[in-house]
Each structure stands twice: as C-alpha cells, then as structure tokens.
C-alpha cells in the first residue's frame, strides 16, 4: 500500500529522491554501455593479436644454416620506401 506524501516539501523530497535514483540508474547504464564498448574493443584487439601471433608462428622456419655473423646492417631507411 502506498502512502501519499503529507506535504509539498515531503513530495518534493520524494520526487528528488526518485530523480536521483533515475539519474544514478542512467549514469550506471551509461557507464555500463561504455564499459561494454571498451570490453568489445579490447576483445577485438586481442583476437587480432592472437591471429597475428598464430600466423607468425606458422611461418617460423628453422634458423638459416651457417654461423651467425656480426651485423653489417645499418638502419638508414626511416620512411616507407
């Protein structure tokens, strides 16, 4: 059984509480949507990383024969050729 507010002040307070609850609910919902979107992005990123790692592992071949020598390579290319 509901109880009617006995005064305007009480009514306002009750409404405010209700509004606060609604706002909090919306805030939570907004946060939940943002979190879900972030999680989805993170999942997508992790899927891409797993795919790439699997692909690279599949391509790994035995090390080239011959004794490794000191590198003669220099890093000069800094733009996309």
């Amino acid at each position, binding site marked *: 059984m509901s109880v009617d507010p006995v005064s305007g002040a009480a009514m306002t307070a009750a409404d405010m509480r209700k509004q606060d609850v609604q706002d909090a609910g919306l805030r939570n919902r907004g946060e939940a949507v943002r979190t879900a979107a972030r999680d989805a992005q993170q999942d997508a*990123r992790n899927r891409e990383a797993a795919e*790439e790692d699997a692909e690279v592992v599949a391509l790994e071949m035995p090390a080239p024969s011959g004794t490794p020598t000191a590198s003669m390579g220099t890093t000069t290319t*800094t733009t996309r050729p």
Partner: protein
Amino acid sequence: MLGLALILLFTGCSDLRSQVSHQWTQAWQAQRSYHDGLVRYDAKDYRGAIRYFARALAHDPAFDDAETRLAWSYYYVGDYPQATRHFRQALARQPRWEGLHTGLGWTRYRLGRYHLALEAFQAALALDPRYRDAAVGRAYALFELRQYAEALQELARLTREGAYFYFPAPDSDVEEVRSRYAWCLYYTGGYQQARDEFVKGIQAHPKREGLHNGLGWTYLKLGDRAKARESFERALQLEPDYADARAGLAEANR
C-alpha cells in the same frame, strides 16, 4: 715443452684464421646479395628482390636493412603474413626504428587488423611526431574503427599540409587523404564541407569513380536529388559494376 707450446699456438691461430675468414666470407656474401636485391627492389621486381634479401639474411641473420627490405618486398607482393613476420623480427632488434613500426602498421592495416595497426602507427609517431606516413596510417585506422571524430582532426590537418606545405608539388597521397577526409566529414554530418572536398578531389582526379559516388551520397544528404543522380551516373559510367553507386542511384530515383 717449447715445441708443444708452438704447436698449440699454431693450431689456435689456424682456427682463428679460419673463423675470421669464414665470417668475412659470410658478411661479404650477405652484402653482395643485399645489393643484388636492391637492384631488383628499385626496379619494382619485388619477387626477385625477395630471393636476394632472404639470401642476405641467411648469411647474416641480424642484417637489419636486408630484413626491412625483405618485409617491404613481401608487402608489395601482397604476402602480408610474411611481411608481418619480418617487420616484427627486425623490430625485436631495432625497437626505436619508426619506419619499421609504420611498415608493420600498414601490413596490419591491409589484413584488416585495425586495432593492431593503430598501435603500430602510434608507436611510430611516439618516436617521430612529424612522420606523415604514420600519421596517415593512424587516421585511416581510426576511420576504419569508426572513431570518426578523432580521425577527422588528423585528416583535416593532413589534407591541408599535403596540399600546401609541399607546394608546388603536392604530396602524392594528398588526394587519397582528401577523399578519406571527405568521407569522414560525411559520416560526422558535415555534408557541405564534404561536398566541397569531394568536388576538389574530382577536379584533381575526374576519373575516380569513388569520388563521384561520395559526392552523390553527399548530395542526397543535402537533399539535391538531381545532382546526386548526376554524380551516381558519372560513377557508373566509369565503373558499371559499382554496387554502392547503383544503390545510390536507386535511392536518388525513389
């Protein structure tokens, strides 16, 4: 006693001499293969180049330039998994080489791995904030991830800089960047500006059907069905199987 010492010394020197000689031969062969690869690379014979760069790496597994050129050669022949593998291997040795991050970024982009592409482009830009190719890649990856607001700012800057900073010879990628910028404006509701950019793009490249198609969709949003129809028809003249332009024309005729 002295005789034994002399024998040991002589044997040791012989081993050392043989080792030095072997290393020198390996290094020389690596360099020679690399230069043979570069000749093919410069002639855009990427398949031929792959053979030589791979040979250079077999002689010297830590030859950074050979591995980088090998990665780009694989990129240009469309073997993106191999390109990824070599960019990653080179990056493991040279993590502060921004060109490698950018190469890995574009390779991931071609494979549709836009989150990873974005990370690679950002790593390149952290090392060199003025690196245009990395900035273009970052904007494209953001666009594909539908982060239009972020992409928009970057594309606006890149279009502006590409057109004016490189005057009198605008950067070769500028019209492609402009087209992406125009689409970004379209998706964020900046239809009038999108129209202006598509028109500028068409002035530079009148035979690019994608620009006419973009202009058509933009006119539709601006409520100008007649001009939209005209643009879609032009796109279809240039590419009769263009499904998006056909859909646009149907929409304009509705």
